[in-house]
């Protein structure tokens, strides 16, 4: 449930609103539910509202982990490939 998408804050308009951008698309969104936003932040957008900031460091960490798991799997497959 809850179709939502990460968008980048391009411009803060006022307390309530900001311009967000995704894939070359610009849209004014409601940011009343988040504090301390700044341009360049990524937020999760749902029904026109920013619900949560995206944490860049955590994202990188997840991606790194995924890559690592992937390599691990690859290595294993390679090993198996050799085995039989």
């Amino acid at each position, binding site marked *: *449930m*809850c*179709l939502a*998408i990460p*968008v980048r804050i391009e411009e803060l308009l006022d307390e309530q609103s900001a311009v967000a951008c*995704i*894939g*070359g*698309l*610009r*849209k*004014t969104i409601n940011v009343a539910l988040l504090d301390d936003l700044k341009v360049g932040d990524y937020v999760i*957008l*749902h*029904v026109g509202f920013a619900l949560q900031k995206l944490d860049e460091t955590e994202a990188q960490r997840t991606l790194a982990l995924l890559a690592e798991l992937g390599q691990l799997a690859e290595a294993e497959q390679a090993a198996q490939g050799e085995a039989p």
Partner: protein
Amino acid sequence: MSRLDLKNGSVEMVHGSGGRAMGQLIEELFARALRNEWLDQGNDQAQFELPPGRVVMATDSHVISPLFFPGGDIGSLAVHGTINDVAMAGARPCYLAAGFILEEGFPLADLARIVESMAAAAREAGVPVVTGDTKVVERGKGDGVFITTTGVGVVPPGLYLSGDRARPGDRILLSGSIGDHGVTILSLREGLGFEADIGSDSQALHGLVAAMVEAVPQIRCLRDPTRGGLGNTLNELARQSGVGMQLVERAIPLREPVRAACEFLGLDPLYVANEGKLIAICPAEQAERLLEVMREHPQGREAAIIGTVVADERRFVQMETLFGGSRMVDWLNGEQLPRIC
């Protein structure tokens, strides 16, 4: 009587009542913009000679909101839409007829802008609007303006294209990116309102078609994936021909903002409308040649081979996804509505 007030005037019931006011509207607005020898004659029909060959006729009623959008308006769309339906038979479109249904109160300035855009599109395409009709409906019984255009054209001898001619092994080609028109229109919807560097792809494709059928007369069928988008149109062709299709998502051109808009609204770009793209199906042997010809043409620069016709009694259209899986590309079910979950 005084001249039509094209600046501040609006359409009134009297403009459809068959009398002097209607004559004036036709003369000062329609005929002036669309001007040609047939309209000048002022008859209720046009007479012309056609070159030899099979005659093709196609009609489309155009209803669109908003009437003006980046990349065109209902006037140019009405010209392109019907020219394309004629061209998809491999034909050269020759003449257009246009029927207008105007809503009482519609600004004459907007109407003039639409008709001029129509005239420009017709001129550019070299397909004149030779006869027409105007009706006015009471306020609240229409939506500004509806335009029904009908085109006639001629298929060069020796060609026969039809949606039932796709055969297993044939290649499926697409002339360019999908979803631009539909997403542009959605972007203008009140409340949704996003900006993006996109516009409708509305354009006449008969030039491209002429080049294609000349180079590859073996083309099985052409169709423009308008309402229902690429996904639904391929299902139509699969059903007509009694075949299945296997697409490759990676090969389907899709602009980034269109993709983003679809993600954000929960839409599938495969079902979003296009107004200036065509699907071509041809034998595998000619596919590369056809692709080449298409890419050489301004309207086919981004053309791609997007899949293959396969034998499948179930007439399924399937697609290898970007992710590497396989999915059904079913008929469009229901309407594509923006969703939140």
